[in-house]
């Protein structure tokens, strides 16, 4: 259904009806060309809450059974309440256009151990649209900061029944962040390690406020309270905290310490053998052993609570830990 705005022509006083979104019209009585000005608004979209309470609870209970959570969570855990809310998000589309030129260096080592550095010139055009989303209010301890899903039925029909969080951050701040994010992504996508020339232009193409339905599910486990959130459109768990399992922690530290020690000791023994006789093997083995021990310790340290989502103090995931481990090994390699 089209929405029309009723106005009076300032020239002849005739009643004019203007379709929503239009800004220019010709008065049907006197023919005056009119331009309608008002506050510059933001396009607002609300997604329809498709998930019912039972589905949100079922998603939570299904989530309990995955990801090294307490093994008896499904049996002992008790849902206390589940209710939907609308959270506001800024969604911006930003275009980056420009060029990044420079070079990358590749090291080649010949059989005598001589190192030759090859300089490979690169010129990369960046012309890409980037979508950025960010929550437009304080998310508290919900663990939601960005919007992953942008597809679904839109409707404002649920607005009267579902509590809605008001936007508290400005659109200008959102646009500034989106531009910074797009620039960073553009530079990363170019893969030019040594930049000699860069000219990038950033344009904010579109800004939308999205109200997104989310189910908050609170549950208890052995007298402790936990919470997770379920996507009201897709029905998937978005974020949450759940109890870990002491057995997994104990296994991790036991096998981690044993495995790390075996790898380190094995590499030292192998490096010392007459047919290998290469100290580098021992160095690599020590690093790998230390990484295994580090990962096991991290799991032991934080394994009492499993966390999913975008929490500020979120513990590093396996991917992050592997990145950390790679950085440590690179640093050690550089020191040798």
């Amino acid at each position, binding site marked *: 259904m089209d929405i029309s705005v009723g106005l009076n022509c300032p020239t002849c006083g005739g009643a004019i009806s203007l379709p929503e979104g239009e800004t220019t019209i010709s008065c049907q009585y006197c023919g005056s060309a009119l331009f309608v000005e008002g506050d510059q608004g933001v*396009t607002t979209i609300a997604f329809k809450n498709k998930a019912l309470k039972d589905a949100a609870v079922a998603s939570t209970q299904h989530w309990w059974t995955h990801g090294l959570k307490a093994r008896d969570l499904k049996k002992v855990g008790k849902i206390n309440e589940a209710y939907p809310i609308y959270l506001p998000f800024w969604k911006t589309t930003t275009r980056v256009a420009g060029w990044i030129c420079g*070079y990358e260096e590749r090291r080649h080592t010949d059989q005598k151990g001589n190192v030759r550095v090859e300089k490979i010139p690169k*010129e990369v055009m960046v*012309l890409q649209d980037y979508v950025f989303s960010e929550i437009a209010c304080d998310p508290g301890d919900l663990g939601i900061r960005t919007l992953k899903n942008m597809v679904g039925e839109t409707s404002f029909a649920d607005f009267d029944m579902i509590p809605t969080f008001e936007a508290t951050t400005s659109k200008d701040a959102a646009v500034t962040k989106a531009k910074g994010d797009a620039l960073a992504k553009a530079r990363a996508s170019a893969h030019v390690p040594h930049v000699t020339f860069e000219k990038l232009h950033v344009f904010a193409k579109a800004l939308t406020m999205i109200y997104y339905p989310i189910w908050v599910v609170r549950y208890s486990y052995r007298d402790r309270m936990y919470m997770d959130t379920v996507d009201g459109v897709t029905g998937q768990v978005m974020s949450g905290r759940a109890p870990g399992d002491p057995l997994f922690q104990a296994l991790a530290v036991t096998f981690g310490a044993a495995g790390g020690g075996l790898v380190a000791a094995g590499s030292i023994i192998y490096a010392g053998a007459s047919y290998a006789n290469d100290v580098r093997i021992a160095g690599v083995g020590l690093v790998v052993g230390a990484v295994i021990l580090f990962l096991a310790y991290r799991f032991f340290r934080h394994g009492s609570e499993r966390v999913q989502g975008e929490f500020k103090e979120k513990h590093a995931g396996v991917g992050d830990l592997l990145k950390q481990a790679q950085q440590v090994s690179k640093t050690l390699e550089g020191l040798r």
Partner: protein
Amino acid sequence: MKQKDKLFYCAQCGTMHVRNGGVEKLDYEIAEFSPNAQGEKVFMPFWRVYASLIVRSKNVEGGTLFKIANFLKGGDSGNMFIYIPAADLNTGDFRRMAVQFTSSPPRYSTRLKFGNEVRIPAAISKQEAAELADFVVVTMEAEQPGVLQRLDYTLTVNDTKLVYLPYVRNAQGQLMPGL
């Protein structure tokens, strides 16, 4: 989602203007359709930026052919028309049209009014067009043989004009040039 036009056209007096804190009248021209153009006729907006380019220095790896070609053309500096599509196009179409029309500017006769033909909404402002002109210039330099490493240049925008070029929508819904 319905695309809003950033530009306002008065069919009574033929004035095109933009509102961004105040009214700014725009200089524009409308290209005439080819007599052979068949199908749904539309006008695509372009910013035609007249700019002066001065290349002070550059460094191109493996650009032998580039230098020869450049020498024949008579240098790196001069005035040029840069065409920037003003419609909301995808990145591929944007680049293709910008480079194509800048490297070989369209020739057309003009008409005074749009008539009943549809104007595709303009989504790119005059200021953005000036920035994108800079991008098109570097693109044309970079697309020469060799790998661009450094470009020290100045691009001064002397004038910007809005040009509506004719396009025809074919049976598949694609827009084809109607010149």
